[in-house]
């Protein structure tokens, strides 16, 4: 399951898509919206994407992960539009025969998502807003 959605993510439904009898490890990562950034109170977050390309990049990340960790199943769902505080903006579920690969593949997927999937986040504060860039991408060499 690879998807962008305007709706609250049903985490259990995402995880169920990767479960299977041969998987001894099932791991879920939730990226959750924080209520503060650098001490400023966040009122809400808004996500937008280059939709078709974002989905294609997510599928490429999933394919890269499956090539690297045989037996992996992976699902990635990312929210779009307004996301309330404390809600999951992204859910990544993986299943693998053994746990080491599950942790590695999950980390690989979120790290890759942040540097190559065309999605943007606007943090809205009481006194303004900012398009919040991820650290560690090609945009911030050396960070």
């Amino acid at each position, binding site marked *: 399951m690879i998807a962008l959605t305007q709706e609250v993510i049903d985490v259990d439904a995402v995880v169920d898509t990767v479960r299977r009898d041969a998987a001894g490890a099932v791991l879920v990562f939730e990226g959750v919206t924080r209520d503060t950034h650098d001490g400023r109170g966040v009122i809400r977050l808004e996500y937008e994407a280059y939709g*078709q390309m974002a989905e294609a990049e997510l599928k490429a990340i999933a394919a890269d992960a499956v090539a690297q960790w045989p037996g992996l199943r992976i699902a990635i769902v990312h929210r779009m539009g307004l996301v309330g505080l404390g809600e999951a903006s992204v859910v990544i579920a993986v299943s693998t025969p053994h746990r080491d690969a599950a942790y590695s593949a999950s980390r690989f997927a979120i790290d890759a998502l*942040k540097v190559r999937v065309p*999605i943007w*986040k606007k943090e809205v504060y009481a006194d303004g807003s900012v398009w919040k860039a991820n650290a560690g991408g090609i945009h911030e060499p050396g960070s």
Partner: protein
Amino acid sequence: MQVSVFYFAMLREQRGRADESLHVEAGLTVGGLYEQIFAAGSIGAMSIMYAVNQSYVSADHMLAENDEVAFIPPLGGG
């Protein structure tokens, strides 16, 4: 030749639109097009990625007729 151009996030706000069709001269690179549009922009070309027909390309990628161009400002997914 004609190309379609997509803007996102701060670039969309700066340009005042999400997309447009532009006539550009043959031989123009995607980085060259960015500098034409955002010459006085606040976001330097060093922090922009480029996509043509929904695949990442380098700034010196040559544009072709009917290309779908997107300027990708610093990402915020996750």
